[in-house]
């Protein structure tokens, strides 16, 4: 069986798959890929089944050495990639293409030029043991395979889902200068009526800034003015949908990502669309965000 040995880790690298379902009642959320479309693209490039696990890398810095031949592909935040062979020769590789690693080859991801999270898939899938039916690490519940550390050896499973059909795809985003900001699509509700008309108007028109205090649980946004509540009662704890735009006491919204709490006691003014959740997972501190609200 081939494997990937972890030789360097940046800020955070975790094993993720589609997520953990059916445990909400026991206090465990879905977790899984923060940017699902990028993860799905990396998965398809190496012809893995949609439920295969891969490595989600926060802001580059990951290096892995192949034990045996391993075919990999990276999608998501755009990183420079180098491959160093066992004999010490180095060459460049690219995002969004199949990379053939021979035994002893070391793959290294630099810091992304745009975006935050890069998905590195290996043909056959990262075959670590499942916890509650998933290989995802949930940072909130601390369940699943632990975040990667130098020296970890990730087994790569047998390829079962057919052969790769393309060698490379055009990068869907992230090439060139990162945008100063993004526009995210959101649907009003469930608790927009807990806010003043001015707050709902501000959500449609104001520009928010991405706070550095953001993670897989959520992206914190800072607006020029807090979003004011019309109803100031305490909201009985209610379930939260992925992509919820929750407004805590301070009035500055949080976009909830994959590891969000299952329930919350602050009102949710709007929920992002699936595509915008993926974009939100790639936001970097200092970018601006505006909302297109329906």
């Amino acid at each position: 069986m081939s494997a990937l040995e972890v030789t360097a880790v940046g800020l955070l690298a975790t094993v993720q798959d589609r997520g953990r379902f059916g445990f909400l009642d026991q206090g465990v959320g879905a977790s899984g890929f923060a940017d699902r479309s990028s993860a799905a693209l990396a998965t398809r490039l190496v012809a893995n089944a949609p439920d295969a696990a891969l490595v989600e890398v926060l802001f580059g810095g990951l290096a892995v050495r192949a034990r045996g031949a391993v075919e990999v592909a990276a999608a998501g935040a755009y990183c420079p990639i180098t491959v160093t062979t066992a004999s010490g020769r180095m060459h460049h590789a690219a995002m969004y293409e199949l990379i053939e690693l021979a035994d002893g080859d070391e793959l290294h991801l630099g810091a992304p030029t745009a975006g935050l999270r890069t998905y590195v898939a290996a043909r056959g899938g990262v075959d670590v043991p499942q916890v509650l039916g998933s290989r995802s690490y949930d940072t909130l519940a601390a369940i699943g395979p632990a975040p990667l550390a130098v020296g970890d050896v990730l087994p790569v499973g047998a390829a079962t889902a057919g052969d790769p059909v393309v060698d490379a795809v055009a990068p869907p985003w992230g090439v060139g200068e990162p945008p100063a900001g993004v526009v995210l699509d959101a649907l009003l509700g469930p608790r927009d009526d807990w806010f003043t008309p001015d707050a709902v108007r501000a959500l449609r028109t104001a520009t928010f800034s991405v706070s550095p205090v953001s993670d897989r649980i959520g992206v914190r946004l800072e607006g020029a003015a807090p979003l004011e509540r019309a109803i100031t009662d305490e909201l009985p704890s209610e379930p939260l949908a992925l992509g919820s735009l929750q407004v805590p006491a301070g009035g500055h919204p949080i976009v909830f990502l994959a590891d969000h709490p299952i329930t919350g006691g602050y009102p949710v003014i709007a929920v992002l669309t699936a595509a915008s959740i993926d974009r939100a997972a790639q936001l970097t501190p200092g970018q601006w965000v505006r909302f297109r609200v329906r």
Partner: protein
Amino acid sequence: MTQRFLRAGERDVLVEFPTLADAVAARAALEGSPIPGVTDAASGARTLMLHFDQKVTNRAAVEAAVAALEPGAGLGVREAPPIEIPVVYDGEDLDDTAALLGITPDELIAAHTGRTWVCAFGGFAPGFAYLVSDGASLDVPRLAAPRTRVPAGAVGLAGEFSGVYPRESPGGWRLIGRTELPMWDLARTPPAAVPVGAAVRFTRVNAAEVGR
């Protein structure tokens, strides 16, 4: 039953009920007659969130199916015998909490052990069960300043709920006691000691019986 349907994004319906008992009863009814295309459900204190697969169904169909549910009355306690949770009632907030309720600590313990609690929903942490009961109110506000560290096994009260902290964490519940019963164990199926709908009885034990 009067329920309100709220939109929670493209793929979730939030159903709001007048009372917690209504929400629990609707959840129990849903267990008995699953809605086609609804792939996941989560409960809240007045709400139920249904996640649906857009390839199979749509919002209107899900809402119609919920409206057609016929929930039983009350908390719909399951037939299974209650899960027993042995508690040493020596919590830091026991005396203050009893005083807030205008009763003695012993009366609070008697009220806590003398009723059947039901898990209305889970959340906060793996294995954390929000327990509710039909008895006389034990409603108390949360602590004004949450503790940064609540030990695993701490038994608390907050609002209309009682609960047991599955692991060490921050928390704002009023602590009345502690238990040795592991609330969360990945080696167990299900890992949560108290799943949604399960009934619980707290029993009073002394510190010597639990060995500390």
